[in-house]
């Protein structure tokens, strides 16, 4: 994959999306699991 001289900006954008969405999903799922385990 060669996206030219600015490819690092493109990869960083996609990385930001993956990390943010993945992080929020993980935190939300862990919270739900913790509450479920309590009840």
């Amino acid at each position, binding site marked *: 994959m060669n996206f030219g001289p600015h490819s690092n900006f493109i990869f960083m954008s996609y990385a*930001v999306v993956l990390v943010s969405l993945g992080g929020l999903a993980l935190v939300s799922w862990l*919270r739900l699991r913790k509450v479920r385990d309590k009840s």
Partner: protein
Amino acid sequence: MHRFANPAQFMRLAARFLPWLMLGFVVCFASGLYFAVFHSPPDYLQGEMVRVMYVHVPAAIMSEGGYVFIAFASAASVIWKHPLADVAARSAAPVGATFTLICLITGSLWGRPTWGTYWVWDARLTSVLVLFFLYLGYMALWSAIEDQQRAAKAASTLALVGMVNIPIIKFSVEWWHTLHQPASIKLVGKTTIDPAMQLPLLLMTLAYGFYFAVILIWHMQAAIMEQRQDSRIRAQLREVIA
């Protein structure tokens, strides 16, 4: 509407729809990424940098859509006192804030090679930053006030007042001279994006929408279960005292 605002009914419906929403997210996200990275052509002006659009524009749509959702849920809470309205509004805030942050960061990364700068204090960028602060303020209000009814009232007021920022974001590129380009996708009028670029954009927008729904439901389920646990503990305490 009141029938669906019943927490028990919501928990039943959520359990039924969650797997389909997750499937929708996985299918749309995987195919959206595939088309965005491998199939979409470079732009005649921006070249390969146009690929940032597929993650930036849907995040902008979700950040504004999320706030409108919170404002509607807050209005429902104030007017009809729906038992689920506050839970829905509060649960949507972290998801909306995350999409706004994604929008701001990917916009910055897109701006550096195309505009020559990560940030300018122009109307569009500043109004989106204000939206991010509104999300933070909304979440902070919920956490800062211990009495949940008072917190709901204060947070709902902030959400409804903050709605004034949404048309400012939308029309900022028309009302002021900005570096940000005007809208290319229009609900009324001709869309100026090539069909080869519309497909990944649509798939990524759908994926973000499914993601929003899944995380919103997880947060709402957790909040409802916490409320039930709290009321159970309070009932047990009352029994002990009596």
